[in-house]
């Protein structure tokens, strides 16, 4: 049997007795129950719109706008305008890209993911 040396800890302030022990695990029953995910919404003005509606409506609006633009090109006055003002072609790309297209596409998808996350916040 070995001799043990008993050391006295300095007494703490009386209020230390009110401190509580804590579990070493995360006690799931004390946490909020799992929440169902919801479809992200985007805010346009003061309205929150479910993207399941916004995407098809946006796509349909885009198709309509393209059809409208194409039909406008059939008009005599618009054709005359285009003929008079054909526009100036910008510097044409040489076909070489500074970044491989696959990499830029991947970076773009990551960026759009992040951007979407910052645009779409949950309604409070």
């Amino acid at each position, binding site marked *: 049997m070995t001799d043990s040396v008993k050391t006295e800890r*300095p007494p703490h*302030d009386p209020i230390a007795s009110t*401190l*509580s*022990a*804590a579990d070493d695990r995360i006690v799931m029953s004390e946490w909020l129950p799992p929440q169902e995910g919801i479809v992200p919404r985007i805010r346009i003005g003061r309205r929150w719109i479910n993207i399941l509606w916004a995407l098809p409506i946006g796509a349909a609006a885009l198709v309509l706008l393209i059809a409208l633009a194409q039909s406008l090109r059939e008009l005599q006055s618009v054709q005359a305008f285009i003929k008079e003002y054909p526009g100036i072609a910008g510097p044409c790309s040489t076909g070489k890209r500074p970044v491989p297209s*696959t990499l830029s*596409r*991947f970076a773009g998808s990551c960026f759009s993911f992040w951007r979407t996350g910052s645009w779409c916040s949950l309604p409070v």
Partner: protein
Amino acid sequence: MHGLVFRFLSWPWCLWAWLGGIASPFTIRHARLVQRIGRFMVGWIKGLSEWWEPNAQLTEQDISPYFWSNGTMPNSAEFEALVADEFAHYRLRVSGLVESPRDFSFADPKALPKQEQITTHFCIQGWSGVAKWGGVPMCDILDIVKPTPDARYAVFYSFSEGSAGGGYYDVHELHNMRHRLTILAYEMNGAPVSVLHGAPLRLRCENELGFKMVKWIAAIELVRDFADLGAGQGGYNEDHEFYGYRMPI
């Protein structure tokens, strides 16, 4: 070819998701171990960053129109009585490893030289707010009570309880209590600190996150080690939420 490159670039995401599925049950079951590993890996870096000077002084124009308040309000008859008589019978006990333990009245800190500072409060939840704080530098309190050489930490006990019950407290390294922006605040934006924001006294330790700045301070104790306090992790949120006891901004 493109598909191959894409797959190559996306594997870290897949690995991350896979590790998440494996790691979550482990971290839930062994949260304290994860906390200790985190302390071992980055705790010393956080300790070093406490020595960096926060560039935190702002102007009156920067003061936030609204300053959020977190924490569970004190709910004891003792505190109610103190509020009722406007803290006339309040006593701040400063004890532990000190040569001259003291009970300060509410008027005592106000009689000491006042320090004002306009600083940003950073909460671990992500919000922040700017306010002007007035109070007595902690170094002046320490000069009065004279810590003994073996005192390493200051324990701040609150009148409030934590969200899961038990008294709220937090521990700070003693060297950080001598930081020039560490004060016991009794004023906020030129008025006495409200009960909501920690009256009669609250800690302002500007190089730490908000939860470390104990409100409704009941007592301060200087200790050599905090392992025998609460669950031994250096604070209420450290015990119950597995935070690190050093949380510099």
